[in-house]
């Protein structure tokens, strides 16, 4: 199962749990899996059914190019990191 690191801002949603494991083959499934464990977290990560514009998903150190479709492996380490897009609307 993929290891997901919870963003600091969302620790109140997880009750302080900093990392968890989720069975998923892509980012969409991973976020749905998080939602099952921590109800409400999905709405904090997604906006208009996409990852929030100021967030990016890092999978094994690579920023996901395909958004919710990006593949996740069983041994993946997943982080939500700042998106590099300052200055744009």
């Amino acid at each position: 199962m993929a290891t997901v690191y919870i963003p600091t801002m969302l620790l109140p949603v997880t009750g302080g749990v900093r990392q968890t494991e989720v069975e998923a083959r892509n980012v969409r499934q991973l976020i749905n899996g998080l939602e099952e464990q921590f109800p409400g977290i999905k709405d904090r990560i997604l906006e208009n059914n996409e990852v929030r514009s100021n967030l990016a998903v890092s999978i094994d150190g690579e920023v996901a190019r395909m958004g919710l479709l990006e593949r996740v492996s069983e041994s993946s380490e997943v982080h939500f990191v700042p998106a590099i897009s300052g200055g744009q609307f």
Partner: protein
Amino acid sequence: MASNIVLSEVEYNVVGKRHLRPDGVDKVTGRAQYGADVQLTGLLQGKVLRSPHAHARIKSIDTSAAEAYPGVHAVVTAADLSFASLSREQLGGDYQRVKFASNHVLASEKALFKGHPIAAVAAESQHVAEEAVKLIKVEYEVLPPAMTVRQAMEPNASLLHEDLFTSELGELSDKPSNVASHMAFETGDLEQGVQQADVVLEREFETASVHQGYIEPHNSTAFWNTDGQLNIWCSTQGPFVVRTSVADILRHPVSRVKVTPMEIGGGFGGKITAYLEPIAALLSRKSGRPVKVLMSRTEVFEASGPAPGTWMKVKLGVTNEGKITAADIFLAFEAGAFPGSPVMQGAACALACYDVPNARINGYDVVVNKPKTAAYRAPGSPQAAFAVESVIDEICEQMGMDPVEFRLRNASREGVRRVEGPVFRRIGLVECLEAVRNHDHYKAPLEGPNRGRGVAAGFWFNRGFQSAVNISVNPDGTVNLIEGSVDIGGSRASIAQQAAETLGIAYEDVKPTVVDTDSIGYTMVTGGSRTTFATGWAAIEAAEDVKTQMVERAARIWDTPIEDVQYIDGVLSHKSDPELRMTFRELARQLLGTGGGITGASNVDPSGEGNGFGVHIVDVEVDPDTGKTTILRYTAVQDAGKAIHPSYVEGQMQGGVVQGIGWALNEEYFFNDQGQMMNSSFLDYRMPTALDLPMIDTVIVEVANPGHPYGVRGVGEVPIVPPLAAIGSAISHAVGQRIDRLPANPGAVLEAMS
């Protein structure tokens, strides 16, 4: 100048050589076409009316006199933008974003910074347009401005947007606020880290708004044809971003917008946002004629996108052995009039140079009554580095520890986990620090009164994103390379080199051309130190596509299976029959008679970007009577990965340093009490010139990026990161007082000394 340090072991034929730039002749002879040179039949001239107030409610706009003025063909206001006719229901969750984007182009309810566009005129001549805008009557209710993050974050601060609430990853504050968003990272146990420390130091910093200072002002020419086709010619780092923005703001199909990027006279991140393009397009639609709109230098300062002013706090805990145990960082960045400062990039860069086990970083994006900030080389990183590196320097001073040795003890390296989570891959910070330690500049004693030496490190992610390249083979054995990356710093050359290396042909046989958005696949901006990496990757893949097709063609000509043909260093040959052999040029000559021409194409969004680090050394001398700082010597060391064109890498490093020196010593937006910029010309906005500076020595450390075929990392961002802190520390050592505000201009230095 010290020798560059090449750690990659691969020798190339074209890559790594200092070739002539393809656009050189046009640029040195003045023939290159820039946006202001665009001439079209029936061209009208546009002029923008801008707010004289930093913060004001717009009660009414009367354009009737301007419309009636002889020679005027169109007048537009925010009422002409699509947003004016769209309901909240129609836009749904996109409402606020579209509202902000539209209001940025033309103010509707409120003017939010001095220079905010209110209306625009298209007329027969520039003079007529200038006279006509004076006839537009605007009734304002002037409001108190919030000019700094400290003012804007006050509980009773004047609100810029009554419908802006603080977002903490989607959770909104109860009340409207000028704080658009708050984000935080945390790792380890901060309190425990502080307890483990022998030395704990906490300091507060401020930096001013600064401008990129590109020499060419913004410009845009638009023609909205009666069939709905909108053509735009402009100076931009990202024609596809302009296309998207214009289509978004004007609610026009993206396929009906063509953006042609003209040559660009500098950008540094500041030429990504579409300021004039939607206005020129609206004026053209209304007048039925092509319209050109130019910014003056004052308009560039007042109404384009500076880098944000900041307020920062840094607390570091360190053991007596020089190991960082804890870091607590507060960053508040000015977003300008609309949300979107690079504070989170600053937060992610702040501690990237170091292995910090316990850390917390809080970042706040704060709207103020200044022009909306834009990217500027490594957005967010220079300010954050100024704060963190200054505290490190002071700790080293207190502990009597060599600042390079301290950084080596804490340096990030492969396997170190960053505060925001991911783990570093192969990076070259340690190699840079060692290069500094061994450099004759660092070994040389600095003697004399009022002199000081500073050292600082800096980081930028470097990124990939989308790029496209097409390569077509000419009958004479040369190739045309079509790309969408605007050439700011010599990327035509660096992309052509990678194509030539891959094809095994001469650099001179590759003819690169930058084209419009109808003529190439989606290509992200030239910026973020991505172009040589990502567009280079696209060129490599397009060249590989050409090679595959050339092998197929040779096999067909020789009537042999494809598997029997090999392509090595630009020569096609049969694997077992030595008689069957053709050079690239010989086969190119036969293409048209053997099945037609060959074009290789690629669209990429590559992973594998390699993070970049730099370490700088600077010696300064401060005049104790005037407070003026003179840069005596400056050396910039940087891991660029493989330097495709070393001269352009060195040029990027020197340019970044010079801009950093300006940021550190003199540059700032100076506002009066009403929020009006008082130094909006190059006469009063003091940028360093060649007369102010010594030669900037550079050392390229080539730690090849394993995520790119030739080892490219990226160059342009990192060199602006360390100068602020390095110079601040050098001045501190020279005058015996810490520098915690930038710019450290003569007045500020004298104040610190007193």
